[in-house]
């Protein structure tokens, strides 16, 4: 039975209200005092992006910088020496890297605090060009990345990408402002147009799946670092028999060895916004209720 629009709106509101407390310290290599400076504490929306924080972080840490002339956009953040990608939503980064267990429907919410606040390090020197894109002072790189992801999602949904390209410049600006200010109501004035194009029906749900890849250690080979692989495929709204496609069906099709059953998580669970998602959830409803601001369902695979 289809979920009512009001329930979908409620879930979307919960997703947008999701937040994470961060504790950010300046790397000692960039700090001109021997004693550790105070950390910057901030609660950020899960759907937001790290570059939005840089001006505030810079204002806070600038007096302690060895090189005070470094511009705010030259800074980068890391967790356990892994550079955090600027174009990934903060909640996705947390679910991929923090090692926290996702919550499921049986949780009472009392255990989640052990890894919080999430402790990140801010650096200005040794920018990891191999792993991160460099930002610019005007914020154009961040916006371009977002807009391109939105266009990619649009091509996936309707096959052409013409819905986004048909928006006015005012609409595009409104959407970007809504993402920056995390204003769901404003965001939905544009998102509604993207998800309900007049005269056509949507074909696929934009989805990226993030898989841990485990190093299988061979004797004498040394330690191989574990990594994350992204898998992307077209996920139709409906199955061949015109049934609503579910997340379990989609994962079973794309990652058969990891999700051998369509109904039950056997080896792994799918996670969105820090929560385990039921395998039976229809992908179209997930898209409308729980997509990230770029239109994608960024599904993290957590091994059981």
């Amino acid at each position, binding site marked *: 039975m289809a979920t009512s629009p009001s329930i979908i709106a409620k879930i979307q509101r919960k997703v947008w209200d999701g937040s994470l407390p961060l504790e950010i310290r300046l790397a000692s290599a960039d700090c001109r005092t021997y004693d550790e400076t105070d950390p910057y504490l901030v609660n950020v929306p899960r759907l937001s992006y790290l570059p939005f924080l840089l001006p505030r972080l810079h204002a806070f840490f600038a007096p302690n910088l060895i090189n005070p002339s470094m511009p705010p956009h030259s800074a980068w953040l890391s*967790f*356990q*020496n*892994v550079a955090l*990608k600027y*174009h990934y939503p903060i909640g996705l980064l947390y679910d*991929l*890297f*923090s*090692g926290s267990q996702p919550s499921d429907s049986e949780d009472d919410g009392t255990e989640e605090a052990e*890894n919080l606040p999430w402790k990140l390090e801010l650096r200005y020197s040794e920018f990891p*060009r*191999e*792993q991160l*894109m*460099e930002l610019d002072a005007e914020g154009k790189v961040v916006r*371009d*990345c977002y807009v*391109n*992801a939105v*266009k*990619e999602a*649009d*091509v*996936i949904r309707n096959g*052409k*990408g013409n819905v986004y*390209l048909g928006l006015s410049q005012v609409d595009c600006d409104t959407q970007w402002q809504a993402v920056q200010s995390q204003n769901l109501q404003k965001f939905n004035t544009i998102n509604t147009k993207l998800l309900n194009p007049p005269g056509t029906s949507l074909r696929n749900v934009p989805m990226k*799946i993030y*898989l*841990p*890849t*485990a*190093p*299988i250690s061979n004797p004498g080979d040394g330690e191989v*670092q*574990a*990594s*994350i*692989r*992204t*898998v*992307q*495929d*077209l996920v139709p709204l409906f199955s061949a028999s015109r049934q609503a496609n579910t997340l379990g069906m989609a994962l079973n099709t*794309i*990652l*058969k*060895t*990891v999700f051998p059953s369509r109904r039950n998580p056997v*080896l*792994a669970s799918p996670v969105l916004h820090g929560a385990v998602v039921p395998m039976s959830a229809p992908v179209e409803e997930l898209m409308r209720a729980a997509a990230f601001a770029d239109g994608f369902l960024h599904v993290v695979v*957590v*091994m059981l």
Partner: protein
Amino acid sequence: MSSSPPPDMVTEAEADEEESLASNESPAAEMPMTMAASMVLDHLPLDAHNALSSAGMLEQKKIHLRFRPGPGTPSLPKPRVTISSTHHFDWIVRYLRRQLRLDSHQSVFCYVNQVFAPGMDEQVGNLWRCFRTGEDLIVSYAVAPAFG
């Protein structure tokens, strides 16, 4: 989207079969995982390890790519090439820069299906799977911003 020049540009003749950059080029690095997140992997049973190792990979190791020049941009002598599906999109940008003999201050803008510029870290195999036309992933390129 502009791209920065590769630090190790080498002018070598390409192999005939598969297009390559330099022989010393390492394969695309996957996103490293943190200790905290990889802890759970240390205790996985072997069947789960095996399930993960190849999950979601394309069956074919190589894919076809077709380059289409945008306005005011020269075409390539060989517009259709075969490349490894595990390359990231930045490989394509570096390849194009070399083919077009661009200086470090010149930019090249690349688009899939004339609509969007993929992230430099997107895997070519994923893009081919989602956006191919026939058997080819079509990449439009221009020396000035075009499309979209």
